């Protein structure tokens, strides 16, 4: 990266964050709904990025964890009326535990074998939901009447007030970016990248690769489960169709197109993969064709992803404060200073 590009990065991120935060003042409900979807898929992309980006495991079944979280929220909320935001951590835990159980036996599989197994996992989950496993998922009908989140006595409906919901999901996104940034720059985050680059050398450096692989699945799934909670309470209705294999493919494309292992890349990826088909709505039945062409073109134009990860500095040799700035610009609200 050139010095000029580095200098421009910080203010650029600040401007983007400011525009994002100001969006509800300028945009209508439809555009805000699109932005909410982008935020939700950005969150899903970031959680998948832990597994696919940092740890480099070919995982194309992330929708399974998303589904477990969404259904956990839906079932408990509609059965016992527990407020949905309280269920946020529980949905994460459910998805995380599910991931630990199913990933344990398959964690040693490499590359494409893992890819098909994760595809199989998401399909098995979908089929189980369709067939109303345990008799609580509503089968192919799904579950309706999920409450909107409510905070300090105020209902934050993703339907009536996408602007309110926008700030809820943005806050969660900012939180996620912050903690994932910290994770990336920690012993844990580095371990995932080591085992991604060379598992033998990672093991030889004293890293328990199997445990870290599993942990990556656990954390990624935990987060996807929480996003499932947000999604279910946004749309208030979920059915197995919302968790088809294609949804997992979409998450996969977000990470790879944006830049595997790069937080800004994943955010941009979500913006493109979710935003472009909406941008092309005016083209009606031609819109997906154009989307496909753009997808191939972008991949060829930027084979490493659009914003591949930049080398991290540790404030030792040539620190210019770039990484701390990147974080504070992105999360807007907290502006936490990050420096080892």
């Amino acid at each position, binding site marked *: 990266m050139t010095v000029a590009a580095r200098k421009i990065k910080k203010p650029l991120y600040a401007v983007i964050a400011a525009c994002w935060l100001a969006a509800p003042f300028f945009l209508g409900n439809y555009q805000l709904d699109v932005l909410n979807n982008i935020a939700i898929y950005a969150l899903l992309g970031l959680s998948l990025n832990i597994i696919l980006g940092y740890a480099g495991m070919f995982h194309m079944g992330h929708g399974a964890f998303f589904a477990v979280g969404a259904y956990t929220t839906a079932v408990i909320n509609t059965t016992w009326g527990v407020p949905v935001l309280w269920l946020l951590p529980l949905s994460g835990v459910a998805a995380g535990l599910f991931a630990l159980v199913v990933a344990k036996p398959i964690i040693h599989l490499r590359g494409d074998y893992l890819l098909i197994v994760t595809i199989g996992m998401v399909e098995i989950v979908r089929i189980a939901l369709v067939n109303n496993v345990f008799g609580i998922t509503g089968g192919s009908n799904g579950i309706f009447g999920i409450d909107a989140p409510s905070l300090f006595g105020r209902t934050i409906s993703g339907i009536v007030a996408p602007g309110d919901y926008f700030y809820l999901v943005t806050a969660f996104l900012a939180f996620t970016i912050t903690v994932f940034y910290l994770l990336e720059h920690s012993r844990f985050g580095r371990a995932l990248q*080591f085992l991604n680059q060379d598992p033998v050398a990672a093991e030889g450096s004293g890293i328990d690769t199997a445990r870290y692989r599993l942990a990556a699945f656990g954390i990624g799934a935990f987060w996807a489960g929480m996003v499932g909670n947000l999604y279910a309470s946004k749309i208030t209705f979920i059915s197995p169709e919302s968790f088809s294999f294609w949804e997992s493919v979409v998450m996969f494309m977000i990470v790879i197109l944006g830049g595997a292992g790069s937080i800004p890349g994943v955010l941009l990826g979500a913006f493109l993969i979710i935003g472009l088909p909406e941008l092309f709505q005016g083209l009606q039945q031609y819109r997906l064709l154009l989307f496909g062409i753009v997808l191939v073109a972008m991949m060829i134009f930027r084979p490493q992803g659009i914003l591949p990860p930049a080398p991290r500095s540790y404030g030792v040799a040539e620190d210019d404060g770039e990484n701390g700035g990147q974080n504070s610009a992105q999360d807007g609200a907290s502006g936490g200073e990050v420096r*080892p």
Partner: protein
Amino acid sequence: MSLLRIENAIRYFGGLMAVGDVSFTVPEGSVFGLIGPNGAGKTTVFNLITGNYRLDSGKIFFRNEDISRMATHRVVERGIARTFQNIRLFSGMTVLENVLAGRHCRMKAGPVAAMLRLPSQRIEERRAVARAMAELLFVGLAGHAGNLAKNLSYGNQRLLEIARALAADPRLIILDEPAGGMNDYETTALVELISKIRDRGITVMLIEHDMSLVMRACERIVVLEHGKKIAAGNPGEIQSDPAVIEAYLGGDDDEF
């Protein structure tokens, strides 16, 4: 006192016996050489010690603890760090991060501590970076800390592997052909580095084809041929051992 003790190690690949009933001990505080012609099973012995390969039979003790069935990362935790014959760095990451990889097993902070940026994690992280910088300084790569590992020269990549291994606080460091690809000047510096490592109280065990290096650096040497130990002793004894001379002259190696 013996730091590492190998007893009747046997390992087959398919039907081929790569290591056949090899026993030796590595005394603490020494520089120990493992030599032999190509295909003698030297690297296999290393891989057996570090748990990359499983023993078919035999035992390996490290500080009187049986590590024969231990996973690699546990062996590293116990205090054995290594370098690889074909350099294995995390090439897309910075030099500093590569050294931090070695530091990993001496750190504790988990994902939750990292996400919450707990004070303990911050302190640990700062110390780890300082220690990693110290190791880079020790091997002479401090100026390269922020570069990507893949941009280093071949010789420097070997040094980086050593720094990574040292960062793990090993009692025994295993170097697999550390001078491979180095020029004479670098090799001389390497001999000096090895003695500096030994001076830190770390036992060094190495495989090397460069016989002048082996003879200069090592205090004790074991010679393998076809997976069997054919000789052991100090450099002088080895150089005059008829079996060793036979092995090297009989083979197509001419480094001796």
